[in-house]
């Protein structure tokens, strides 16, 4: 499903309208306005401290915004706390540090939320979990514990765990930044695979080649604000904004890939 | 059932005097233990196995035996060896013996908490030992062990109440005396409990302020 197939009449899956967020005196999100349409894959890039992670966290309510509106799957997140609980069933998140539960086995990590939140019976949840593990390439590791897995394997389990609740939207917060280079590929492959399935993806990443390959649009952030939005061919190859140019130069200056 | 706090009024003087005794016992015992522990610390981390074993045994003894037992040994036992012991002195000695063991471990903990990077940096800079100790180790050790030292001071104050059982005229003793004189045990013990609470909270409050002023950072209790 490409951008062209989508009808512009459909309400966006995620809509930010003039959103601000402050931590004390620090402005972390500055007048953010952004639409993400259903099925789109959005890459969010920018220097450290630009607010990328915070942006992601306001989508599933881990961070509450101060001003403006955030509408996810039709639910306005300004209202009471119930709204956050509701949309968390439709929004999954994968973290930079994986955040697997070390005292639970791989399979138990995955079936916990479907069973307790989705009220899915254990047998059914286990079956679905096994399919997910197969999909991320970890079929025989279901009884292992996170401490027995490599970083790349742990992150793939984390992805399976996020998928287990059958979300419409998936958020990735620098999913490969904590991985040794040789494991980055296996995780990116899984995410690419997901991008093709019609799930809405928001990926904060430093992997520009990856963004080029999988994103429908790239969002560049700096100092809490959105600096540039556009298709990867534009933003990553012939950007308009000075910040983007500087940022891309700095990134490619240090990388050998 | 009647609760009447006014009956305590004539005894306020008794409580005041007893509180002074409590303060003296606790502070002298604590002070002595702070000094003794500093002197014994080198033995605890010494290279000699004998030294470490001796101190280690002492610490284990104090860790596993009730303070009351130590108190009885000091008060009833030492005189049989020819050492005269009044209740006041015995209380201080027993409390200090117990507290020193914990203080040694607190100091050691403070030293251990210094990030290894600091010791490595000091060594690679070629600084002499006394300088390193005075400028790098000691200030940091004090900072890291500060909260625990405060807790130990409070522990001494609370521990002093045991001295009642050998007749020391401290606060808990006063409570039983006043209680039996007035037949108002409930009111007496509530008042004494409140005095202890105020003492403990005051010490903690002062200690946290002292920490904030000296080290300007979040108190890590």
């Amino acid at each position, binding site marked *: 499903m490409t951008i062209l197939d989508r009808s512009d009449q459909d309400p966006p899956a995620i809509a930010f309208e003039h959103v601000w967020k402050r931590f004390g005196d620090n402005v972390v999100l500055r007048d953010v306005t952004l639409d993400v349409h259903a099925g789109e894959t959005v890459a969010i890039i920018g220097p450290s401290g630009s607010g990328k992670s915070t942006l992601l966290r306001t989508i599933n309510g881990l961070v509450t915004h101060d001003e403006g509106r955030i509408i996810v799957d039709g639910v306005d997140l300004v209202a009471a*706390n119930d709204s956050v609980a509701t949309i968390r069933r439709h929004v999954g998140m994968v973290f930079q540090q994986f955040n697997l539960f070390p005292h639970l086995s791989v399979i138990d990590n995955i079936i916990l939320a479907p069973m307790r939140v989705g009220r899915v019976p254990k047998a059914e949840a286990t079956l679905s979990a096994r399919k997910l593990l197969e999909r991320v390439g970890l079929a025989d590791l279901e009884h292992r514990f996170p401490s027995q897995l490599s970083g790349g394997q742990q992150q793939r389990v984390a992805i399976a765990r996020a998928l287990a609740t059958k979300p419409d939207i998936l958020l990735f917060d620098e999913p490969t930044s904590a991985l040794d280079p040789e494991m980055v590929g296996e995780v990116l492959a899984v995410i690419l695979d997901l991008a093709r399935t019609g799930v809405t993806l928001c990926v904060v990443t430093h992997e520009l080649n990856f963004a080029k390959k999988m994103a429908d649009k790239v969002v560049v952030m700096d100092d809490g604000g959105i600096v540039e939005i556009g298709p990867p061919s534009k933003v990553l190859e012939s950007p308009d904004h000075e910040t983007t140019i500087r940022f891309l130069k700095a990134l490619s200056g240090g990388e050998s890939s | 059932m009647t609760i009447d706090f006014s009956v305590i009024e004539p005894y306020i003087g008794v409580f005041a005097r007893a509180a002074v005794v409590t303060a003296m016992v606790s502070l002298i015992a604590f002070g002595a233990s702070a000094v003794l522990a500093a002197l014994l610390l080198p033995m605890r981390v010494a290279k000699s196995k004998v030294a470490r074993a001796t101190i280690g045994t002492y610490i284990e003894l104090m860790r*596993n035996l009730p303070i009351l037992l130590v108190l009885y040994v000091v008060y009833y036992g030492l005189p*049989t060896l020819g050492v005269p012991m009044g209740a006041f002195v015995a209380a201080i000695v027993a409390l200090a013996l117990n507290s020193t063991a914990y203080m040694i471990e607190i100091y050691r903990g403070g030293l251990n908490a210094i990030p290894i990077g600091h010791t490595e940096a000091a060594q690679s800079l070629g600084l002499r030992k006394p300088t390193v100790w005075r400028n790098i180790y000691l200030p940091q050790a004090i900072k890291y062990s500060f909260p625990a030292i405060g807790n130990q001071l409070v522990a001494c104050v609370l521990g002093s109440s045991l001295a009642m*059982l050998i007749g020391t005229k401290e606060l808990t003793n006063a409570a039983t005396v006043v209680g039996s004189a007035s037949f108002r045990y409930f009111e007496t013990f509530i008042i004494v409990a409140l005095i202890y609470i105020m003492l403990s909270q005051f010490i903690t409050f002062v200690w946290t302020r002292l920490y904030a002023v000296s080290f300007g950072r979040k108190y890590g209790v």
Partner: protein
Amino acid sequence: MFNSQYWPDVWILISRGFVLTIVLSIAVVIGSSVIGVTLGLSSHYGRMSTKKYSLSNTLVTVFVRIFRSVPPLVLLFLLYFGIPSAFDIQFDALPAAILGISLFYGAYMIEVVRSGLESVPVGEVEACKALGLNRGQSLRFVIFPQGIRLSLPAGTGLWIGAAKDTALATGIGLFELTTAMMTVRQITLSSWNVFGVAAVLYFGLNFGFSRLGSGLERLLGEDRRIARAQGEKASRGREFAKSRKGST
């Protein structure tokens, strides 16, 4: 050791005392742990709320501040002498001793439990929220299992403290080990023998508790868990974990 004419009496007295001390110690370990875990959990549950203020947290904090600041002996006296005097309720020495010591050490235990629960990595708590688990579920399935294990070392120390302070029951007339020791001393007129016996017994008791603590830690520990889940012996579980730790 002792003058032989006293021996059977001495034996009986010390045994009586030691048995009561053991009973008291077990009771206060259980009592303080129950207080610590229940109040610690409810306080943490309150703290997890997104609302700025938590009633349960405040109440528990007040409880902790009060009961950590009053000497256990005073608590015992208050329960044993004070309550009957004001309220016409009979309070026996044994329950008074158990409750008094449990309250004091329970207050410290609450802090230990709270700090254990708080030590669970923040990222995991975020993951719970992102998955849609509510506070109770996060606590039950993720935070408590890990937090309680983190609390064990400090908790074991408190158990030993509580077991030692059962000696205070002397003050309200219970015939536990310290009372027995002093009684024997008066009968035999020799101090150091009986001090030594009492010391050894207390040592043994506390050693037992600290072994219990480390046994629990191992039982709840990772090696055992891995091994149990995979149906293998514990030692092989440990090897598994070790072999993988290097590859992250």
